[in-house]
């Protein structure tokens, strides 16, 4: 009985796989041999488009869309029209992996932008690596994604040649935050909370290491659970620990509530976090006042960069419903890097797109170098951005305001 059901399952799976691959090979013909005519290629997008992190995800999707529209309008690559294929991962790694498989199966996809969450990226990297499909994340900051699991021991090894990112890593962000907290904000005793996720726990660990190295004291550490809303027990602990500040590794839905509940518990101390909490949703998480809370984010504020003025103007003119948010500029640059790589591939192949361009585009992405929205865009040997600019933001009168922008120094 057991064997028979296994047999049925295997048959079903094989049939599905065959059907899928059949679809794939049919699609093949459309892309390749359209000689002098206009070829359409797609840039995949994967981000949390629904759910609590959707304010970030929608900004990513819209910014890639803007890059694609701009490329088409300017006829950036002769003979090639770009389109987007946007998929929703709901910040769930399993969904991200399914989306990765979908993008790989769609032969018109020549590269993809996303995802937002480091944990989701881990589940997608392997799928793209097997298909030579370029992946550029505008938001992942976990170091292991580009430098391997043993990066902390100094053994840097790039695990997947197809993975790039326009965002800086948490090694830089966590240390930058610790330096600001200790030197500029003069905080000496900090309580660290993380959300047990790849991004949050990694960022918190790097922060603790650097804060201790500088001479600061860790009043205590704790962990919370994503999607819960009651953190009063942790808040009471923070208050009783006598800490003068809180550092939170995680995302804004929990970060906002944690900050509010710490303040309600009677500890009027600031909370600091990474780019995950740098979102208007952090301030509006509940009714409590968040003034004084801090957040670091990768890059300079997009509004203040000369290179970004055109982006901001075009985005606002584009009529998008959601703001470009934290990662908009990085998403635009990520998409533009793929477009530039396609341009180079086409130029190297006598002005037309090769039949299976993915490997050649991957090769070209590693070598791109252009002035993007967020500054110079290029990648190092690990696939990390060479841009190491960061900004500290503070909540002032209910809105995030930048207080310090700098290039990270060791």
């Amino acid at each position: 009985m057991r064997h028979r059901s296994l047999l049925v399952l295997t048959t079903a799976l094989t049939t599905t796989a065959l059907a899928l691959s059949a679809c794939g090979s049919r699609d093949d013909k459309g892309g390749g041999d359209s000689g002098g005519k206009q070829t359409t290629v797609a840039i995949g997008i994967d981000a949390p488009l629904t759910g609590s992190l959707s304010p970030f995800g929608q900004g990513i999707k819209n910014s890639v869309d803007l890059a694609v529209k701009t490329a088409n309008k300017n006829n950036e690559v002769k003979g090639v029209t770009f389109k987007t294929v946007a998929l929703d991962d709901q910040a769930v790694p399993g969904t991200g992996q399914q989306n990765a498989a979908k993008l790989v199966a769609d032969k018109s996809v020549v590269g993809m932008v996303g995802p937002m969450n480091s944990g989701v990226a881990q589940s997608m990297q392997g799928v793209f690596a097997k298909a030579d499909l370029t992946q550029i994340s505008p938001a992942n900051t976990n170091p292991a994604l580009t430098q391997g699991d043993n990066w902390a021991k100094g053994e840097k090894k790039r695990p997947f040649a197809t993975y790039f990112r326009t965002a800086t890593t948490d090694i830089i962000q966590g240390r930058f935050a610790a330096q600001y907290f200790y030197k500029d904000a003069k905080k000496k005793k900090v309580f660290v909370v993380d959300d047990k996720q790849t991004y949050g726990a990694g960022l918190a660990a790097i922060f603790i290491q650097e804060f201790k190295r500088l001479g600061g004291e860790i009043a205590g550490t704790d962990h919370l659970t994503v999607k819960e809303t009651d953190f009063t027990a942790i808040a009471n602990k923070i208050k009783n620990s006598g800490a003068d500040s809180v550092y939170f590794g995680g995302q804004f839905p929990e970060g906002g509530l944690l900050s509010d509940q710490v303040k309600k518990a009677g500890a009027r101390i600031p909370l600091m976090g990474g780019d995950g909490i740098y979102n208007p949703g952090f301030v509006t998480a509940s009714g409590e006042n968040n003034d004084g809370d801090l957040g670091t984010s990768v890059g300079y504020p997009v509004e203040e960069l000369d290179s970004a003025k055109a982006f901001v103007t075009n985005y606002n003119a584009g009529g998008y419903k959601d703001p470009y948010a934290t990662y908009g500029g990085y998403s635009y640059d990520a998409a533009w890097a793929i477009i530039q790589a396609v341009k180079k591939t086409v130029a190297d192949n006598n002005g037309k797109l090769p039949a299976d361009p993915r490997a050649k585009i991957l090769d070209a992405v590693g070598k791109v170098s252009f002035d993007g929205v967020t500054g110079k865009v290029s990648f190092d040997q690990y696939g990390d951005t060479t841009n190491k600019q960061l900004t500290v933001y503070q909540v002032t009168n209910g809105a995030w305001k930048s207080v310090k922008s700098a290039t990270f120094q060791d």
Partner: protein
Amino acid sequence: MHELPQTLLSGLALGALYGLIAIGYTMVYGIVQLINFAHGEIVMIGGFGALTVRLWLPDSVPLAAALPLMLLGGAIASVAVATAAERFAYRPLRDAPRLAPLITAIGLSIALQQIIWAFYPDAKKSRGFPQFQGDAFELTGSIHLQRDDLFVLAAAPLCMLALGLFVAKSRTGRAMQATAQDPDTARLMGINTDRIIVIAFAIGGAFAAVAAVAQGLRAGQINFEMGFILGLKAFTAAVLGGIGNIYGAMLGGVVLGIAEAASTTYIQHIPGMQQLGGGGWKDVWAFVLLIVVLLVRPQGLLGERVADRA
């Protein structure tokens, strides 16, 4: 040990909230032996019902004055959904194998979440919920009572008192007890058991709305996913207290809430257990407690019936 009173107070407020939701699980289970896994979503719908009322009212109405209307709006929404679920999803399956209504409940839970996600304006992210303004009440130097916790600490005992009186004294309440004991005999005695079952779902829905308002006030926000974790915790509370017993549900909720708060605070002070303490492990300890209680008392803390049909 100076943080003990504060830990107990926070745990009590959280536990009372779990208890209010657990009532819905336990009443339905007591009468039809069904674990209504969609009950967490009934809570969520109650929250959105209350929020809708608040948005309809002009901003000039103070929250304290709006609260009764919000409760009413939330109760109408969740009672309507709970009774509709009974009528259209569970009643046709009443004589089906026990797994069928259970799977239906899980499907219904997903469906209700997605309906709110898709059709309630701006519900794809968290919606802000009004909160009482002002600092916490300082009872003594080290104990703070949150304004928003006051609601659940007052509402939970009142609701329990009303429910206790209703079940023990009223004709319908006694008919409920009879149906719970033996539905077939109850029907032979002239009790309309279909009506009793609907009433059980309705009471669960009304309690869910109170819990949803309490949760909204405490967290300052509600979202379409909030029912899942709350429902899971409340179900645990109902089992802990003895499923089928209404006082057990409230006691189980309070015990669970205090266990969560205390394990976050204290476990890591036990020598050698530092790694196993804190907020990341509180659910583990809550379930360790549940398993220990069920080992010693399989019927739960106050359970009367042996859990032979679960």
